[in-house]
């Protein structure tokens, strides 16, 4: 076996440029990348709760990609509207927080200071709070603890 043997996995990945058929309603996809999405994640959960739950229940019935397109369009539209509102009202705090996340492996516990200012701005302007579901009763949620054990090394 001294001659070159090509592998079975293609080295040129395949891109399919065919758009969706015209009978499926069009929705503009969300063009936000992972850092800003992680920053906005809990606010998307608070703002779009009903649409997200609809989508998850629909997916629980059937995992086929074509099954939940309508609920998926609603989720996309809701998330897009929230991102637009966040950018209108709290742009600098939002950008500060997601830049901090990008510098820190996208970990929340290393970016509490920008997160606190973003949370106060979101609460004042839009009335949304970050709630961590599944926090045990009587225990402070980790993002509100003043002196956590797991924190950044430098202040």
């Amino acid at each position: 076996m001294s001659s070159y043997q090509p592998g079975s996995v293609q080295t040129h990945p395949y891109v399919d440029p065919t758009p969706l058929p015209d009978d499926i309603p069009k929705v503009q996809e969300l063009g936000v990348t992972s850092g800003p999405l992680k920053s906005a994640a809990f606010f998307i959960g608070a703002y779009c709760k009903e649409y997200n739950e609809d989508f998850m229940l629909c997916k629980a019935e059937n995992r086929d990609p074509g099954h939940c397109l309508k609920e998926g369009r609603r989720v996309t539209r809701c998330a897009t509207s929230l991102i637009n509102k966040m950018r209108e009202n709290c742009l600098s705090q939002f950008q500060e927080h997601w830049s901090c996340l990008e510098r820190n492996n996208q970990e929340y516990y290393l970016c509490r200071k920008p997160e606190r200012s973003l949370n106060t701005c979101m609460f004042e302007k839009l009335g949304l709070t970050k709630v961590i579901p599944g926090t045990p009763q009587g225990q402070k949620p980790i993002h509100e603890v003043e002196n956590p054990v797991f924190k950044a090394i430098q202040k």
Partner: protein
Amino acid sequence: MPVPWEALIPFGLVTVMFGISGTLLNVSTKAQNLGKPVRHNIDNWDEMMMRRDEQLTGHRRGQRDDPVPPPGFETSSVWQTEKTA
């Protein structure tokens, strides 16, 4: 007795070599990650999000917060294929 300065040359050499290789490694990793620290403990979710970031910005560590995607985003997904016949 004069100080045996020739004996300190290997210490200096080793320090300089560690320093140069560490600096080169740091510069190389920072350049590959657009000046940000390297992402570690990447699971399948993070891998999927970084592939999406590459579709949106052209680089796996590129970020943008414009809700309107660049044109052609809906059909720019990359599929890995395998030859079966």
